[in-house]
């Protein structure tokens, strides 16, 4: 089964270390809430703000989850310290989805997909199926591995510790205008490669309709 998605808008952010242009003070006015945001939540909120759509349903994906908080919990257990309640509540894969809902007052469908290297592909597939019953939706994939002692554990060749891509899409019966070749983006998390290829093609095209076929 093939489902065609029209890409209505997109946003992208990346950094070798930590993204410093996420504009948190504008995106999240509540200081207490802003202080508690995880890295993936900050990236997701920034991308959503760039697209300007806090209302549509969202499929959000990341391969590694909230590694800063997870590392904090594991260190506490290993050293016999008490686990931080904030770290625990922020450690689940669904954390960015929750903050998107709270900040944007989005009470609709927001779900999280995690499929390691296939995360982007799975987000595109889930989004394509959901698009059949929705006007439009956001597909977001991000990964942040900027945690303490990452250098000792990073065996995946990930040079960019933070990267995120968001697409605003809708179901269409128009013919596809782009196909993905499975291009490699060395230095980036594999979880995000298909999304990077999509935005590369969007930038090359510069204008006109952008339609991609998703095989289910």
């Amino acid at each position, binding site marked *: 089964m093939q489902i065609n998605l029209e890409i209505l808008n997109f946003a992208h952010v990346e950094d070798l270390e930590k993204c410093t242009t996420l504009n948190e003070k504008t995106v999240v006015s509540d200081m207490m809430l802003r202080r*508690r945001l995880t890295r993936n939540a900050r990236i997701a909120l920034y991308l959503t703000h760039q697209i300007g759509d806090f209302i549509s349903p969202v499929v959000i994906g990341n391969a590694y989850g909230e590694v800063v908080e997870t590392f904090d*919990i594991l260190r506490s257990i290993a050293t016999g310290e008490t686990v931080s*309640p904030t770290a*625990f509540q*922020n*450690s689940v894969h669904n954390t960015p989805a*929750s903050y998107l809902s*709270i900040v944007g007052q989005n*009470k609709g*469908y927001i779900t999280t997909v995690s499929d390691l290297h296939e995360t982007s592909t799975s987000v595109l597939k889930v989004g394509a199926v959901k698009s059949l019953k929705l006007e439009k939706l956001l597909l977001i994939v991000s990964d942040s591995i900027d945690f303490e002692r990452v250098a000792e554990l990073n065996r995946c060749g990930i040079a960019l510790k933070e990267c995120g891509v968001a697409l605003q899409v809708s179901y269409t019966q128009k013919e596809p205008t782009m196909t993905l070749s499975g291009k490699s983006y060395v230095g980036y998390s594999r979880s995000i490669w298909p999304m990077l290829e999509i935005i590369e093609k969007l930038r090359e095209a510069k204008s006109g309709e952008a339609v991609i076929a998703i095989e289910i």
Partner: protein
Amino acid sequence: MVVGADELSRSAVNGFDRLGIASHSPTRPFDMERNGINVAEGIAVLALSNQKSEACVEIMGCGVSSDAYNITHPHPQGEGAMAAMNQALEAAGLNASNIDYINAHGTGTVANDEIESASIEKLFGSKPFVVSTKAVTGHTLGACGALEAAISAMSILNNVIPPCTNLSTPVNTALNHPVDATSCEVNYVLSNAFGFGGGNASLILGKVHAD
């Protein structure tokens, strides 16, 4: 195949304990004396098919909503929970009165059980049986959605409602909490699964009748 699985870990046990919602005694969902969850592990496998059979149950509909309220605490008026349950009813083409049994999320925490029971009463009244099987299984976290869908399916296939274990003084006396396992005709079951950060899902399963 749909699989829900989670394994017991020190991070989960320590984390829930630090949030003050882990019970150190057997959990008592929907009881006035409830004091938290029992963190557990489990796995459930659901085999899906597009062929109807009386040996199977049918997925009638589901609903998904977000609380947009708090990273750990559910919406105090249960708006998200009720939205998910209403969406599931609409998707299934059913009325609240059609539901025979609600497999509640029923974690045994003060907040969830009070809000969920009030939401269920508001939408369904006193007719359906309401049970949290977490009193027996514990909270299997990432596995509980699939696990409780399997329990709901078994309820339909066997025409049995499981009992409310460890419940002596209900927080909401308007609800129909069975003390013992109850044999009766079970045609439709609604199963709730609510998550951290206000992610809510409700699933309705139905009996397949011979045409």
